[in-house]
């Protein structure tokens, strides 16, 4: 049972990493904690549901559509709602995105209703069997997709002009502006990329079980704890933290009690803030050093 629990924990951790990647990218560049990321994920799930139900497309193909749709939505939301508060204190953006999350929940309720929806392609409740162990296909595909998206994000950040611009803006906006980086455009693209990764995550979440617009609230606490644990702004850190949380929750659920699983993420936030405030792979901000 222990090995199977580890397998399940690692696969779930991979899905968590995919879901958290957008949140940490947005913070890394914009210093905005996007509380609406859970709503983005569920919106990605609903887009997947619609494409699967109405057009008969496989959810794994819909990942691309969902990402594009969420990229566009993220881009538009940035200009309408986020841009005006981008230079405001972080608490302002937290409040704004908190409100945005519930606004999006209302929009989803208006479009898709508040009844539960389920995406069930033929393979969704099947597993690959390796000896006495099993790998649920929905989690396996989520895990693989997480690796692909993370690798793509890493490639964008390290091998493209856009990525260099994003990293330059994350490092120092003023310096980046001096060398010709258009900060506003970079911020918009980053926010849209974060939303696009939520679109991919939403496609996988839709394969995990039924969901309603209100399901967005289930994800944000866990995702925040992952990005804090991994280091705000660090994608590799988020991956490590997601795997720690995925395996930790699975072990906690199996050997202690599922009642304590949600507490694990909160405990990890307390622990990391006390021991290593910048997170596993995060770097200290100048403000941190000054203190």
């Amino acid at each position: 049972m222990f090995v199977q629990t580890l397998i399940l924990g690692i696969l779930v951790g991979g899905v968590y990493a995919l879901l958290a990647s957008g949140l940490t990218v947005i913070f890394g560049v914009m210093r905005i904690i996007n509380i609406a990321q859970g709503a983005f994920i569920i919106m990605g799930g609903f887009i997947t549901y619609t494409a699967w139900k109405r057009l008969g497309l496989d959810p794994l193909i819909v990942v691309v559509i969902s990402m594009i749709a969420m990229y566009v939505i993220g881009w538009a939301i940035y200009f309408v709602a986020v841009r005006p508060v981008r230079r405001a204190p972080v608490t302002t953006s937290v409040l704004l995105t908190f409100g945005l999350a519930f606004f999006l929940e209302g929009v989803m309720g208006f479009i898709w209703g508040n009844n539960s929806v389920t995406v069930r392609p033929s393979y969704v409740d099947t597993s690959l069997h390796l000896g006495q162990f099993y790998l649920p296909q929905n989690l396996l595909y989520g895990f693989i997709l997480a690796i692909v998206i993370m690798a793509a994000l890493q490639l964008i950040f390290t091998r493209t002009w856009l990525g260099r611009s994003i990293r330059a803006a994350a490092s120092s906006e003023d310096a980046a502006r001096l060398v010709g980086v258009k900060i506003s455009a970079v911020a918009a693209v980053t926010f849209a990329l974060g939303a696009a990764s939520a679109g991919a995550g939403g496609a996988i979440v839709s394969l995990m079980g039924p969901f309603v617009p209100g399901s967005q609230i289930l994800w944000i606490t866990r995702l925040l704890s992952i990005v804090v644990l991994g280091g705000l702004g660090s994608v590799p850190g988020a991956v490590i933290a997601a795997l720690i949380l995925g395996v930790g929750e699975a072990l906690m659920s199996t050997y202690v009690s599922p009642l304590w699983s949600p507490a694990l993420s909160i405990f990890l936030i307390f622990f990391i803030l006390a021991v290593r405030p910048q997170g596993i792979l995060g770097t200290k901000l100048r403000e941190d050093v000054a203190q």
Partner: protein
Amino acid sequence: MKRKSILLLSLALIAVLAVALFAVACGGTEATTTTAAAPATTGTTAAPATDTTGAPTTATTVANAAPLKIGTSLPLTGGKSVPGSAAKQGYEVWQDMINTAGGLLGRPVELVIKDDASDQNTIVADYNALIAQDKVDLLLGTFSSLLVLPSSAVAEKNNMVYVTPTGASPKIYERGFTKTFMSQQALAPDAGKVFANYIANLPADQRPKTAAYPTMDDPFTAPVIEGIKAIFTAAGIKNVYEVTYPEGTTDFDSIVNAIKSANPDVVVHGAIFEDGVAIVRGMLKAGFKPAWLFQTTAPSTGDQYAQAIGPENTEGILYHMSHSQKANTPGNAEFVKRYYEMFPEAKDLPEDVADAYAAGQVLAAAVTAVGSLDQDAIANWLHANPVETILGPLSWDAKGIPQGEFMIAQWQKGLTEIVLPENVATAPIIAGWKPGTPVPPK
């Protein structure tokens, strides 16, 4: 200028996307629940009531009277939106039918429905607002014991009768309240009693030897599971796994893995909806099939449940049931007919709809019998008299505890059948859970 252009472009983009998604999601032609229900939610004060054919009825004169406002707050969004939305439909059918029949105390019924977002704090604010600001004449209850617990306290404090379609947790009736009445047959500890006794009385060679009891940490589901466990334990069925998980749990594969390791003959699951679906799907993924599967609530949500786990995987799943479309109870046929007329997109009739309708029936019966809105008189009448509903006759003790017994239903060939008690059964019980059984198209 450029910024303004981008802003306008963004707004236009959002509007276009919203319209496009709405069109695609609704298939362009299907009426939504909200649309279908809209005339009912606004009450009938502006237009004469009509019968099911649309012809004017004797209620025309009633429509001119001041409306009788009945307030409720339901979980229309959030984690309990599935039963909450169903309850809203039930109330709307009741409102439509009672207004068609002449209203209540000669006045048209106007529902004031708020959304508590499945939140215990919000529902307290909602019921306070219904009483203090909306000044409703009567109250109807909400969905799930979790929300009935605080909302019934608001009603009691304001000396108002609170007839609720759910609220089976014993905790609700241990507070000395006198005005809370649940419009179902029994409380949670007895909800699975008929099923548990059936299993316990099976011949020894057919009786399960071991049982697992996963349940959500919920004031309704946990007592149901405890009630069944007590009977099973007395019958010598060994408890091999027991776990309570919190609302909002998303990873059920680890729980299923533990259940599979314990290898029980029967799984008795205290579920609400998403968790019920997730455990079944988890067992399918794990390749684990217990001989018997009983779940609370989730299987009663009808087509939503079947679509969520796959209709072919429903065969043999058991659950407690308060209402059957086939029941020969007074007014049931008319209720079922009107429901499908008002909600033509509905593929079936979840019992949550019927429970809400029955709550309206109970309230109306008491108000009509008393002939006034005197809350003490209404409560006293309900303590002393049974009420005929579409669920069958309901009656309550001094604490407001219903004195009946739930039926047990089973999914068979993609439909639900009453299987226990045998005297009301619509089909014989089939042994065991048989996922992967082909289901004939509806």
